[in-house]
């Protein structure tokens, strides 16, 4: 079974401080991992995916298969980064593709 764990429900940092949102996964195959973000009063949207190895809004995430982790990092947090962040694992159920979401971490960036 596939599972995603985000150990922190809330992460509070000051503006300019580094941020790391933790994500660990359990999956027997080759994982596809994503970070989704939900800003206040907006719909859930993709932030980044591991296969692209991209930096979006200053955020990066590296897949570590040895530690089964996909932590999201940003060196200098901004107030506009305050949002709910979900780590997600792509996989398959009987119907085909599916995403398994972690419990989410609320990031609060204080001025």
């Amino acid at each position, binding site marked *: 079974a596939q599972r995603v764990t985000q150990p922190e429900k809330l992460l509070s940092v000051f503006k300019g401080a580094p941020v790391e949102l933790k994500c660990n996964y359990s999956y027997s195959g080759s994982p*596809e991992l*994503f970070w*989704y973000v939900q800003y206040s009063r907006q*719909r*859930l*949207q*993709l932030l980044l*995916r591991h*296969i*692209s190895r991209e930096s979006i809004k200053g955020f990066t995430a590296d897949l570590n298969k040895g530690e089964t982790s996909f932590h999201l990092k940003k060196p200098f947090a901004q107030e506009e980064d305050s949002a709910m962040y*979900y780590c*997600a694992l*792509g996989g398959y*159920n*009987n*119907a*085909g*593709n*599916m*995403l*398994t*979401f*972690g*419990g*989410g971490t609320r990031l609060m960036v204080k001025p």
Partner: protein
Amino acid sequence: SAVISQKPSRDICQRGTSLTIQCQVDSQVTMMFWYRQQPGQSLTLIATANQGSEATYESGFVIDKFPISRPNLTFSTLTVSNLSPEDSSIYLCSVVTPSRSAEAFFGQGTRLTVV
């Protein structure tokens, strides 16, 4: 990309009644997903709806409680039946782009309150 229109955006319903949520996509997609997001909780997949076949339900969700229709490649409905206060939640429609590194797109959600 895909733009999803989901309605209603919110509703307050009486116990024992039902609510049908509609999801319209601006492009044809094979798979549509319905999620529930209970207060303070993560997203839980209810079922996957493929056009032309019965929906596939995840453990803990049954068709009698959450009947789904998928009449074509751009539209789906989720009905939450025989409502109880425990059904108060946000319900989300989602689609996935047809590539292996699939990006999911979400509707704005339906906030259901059962009184």
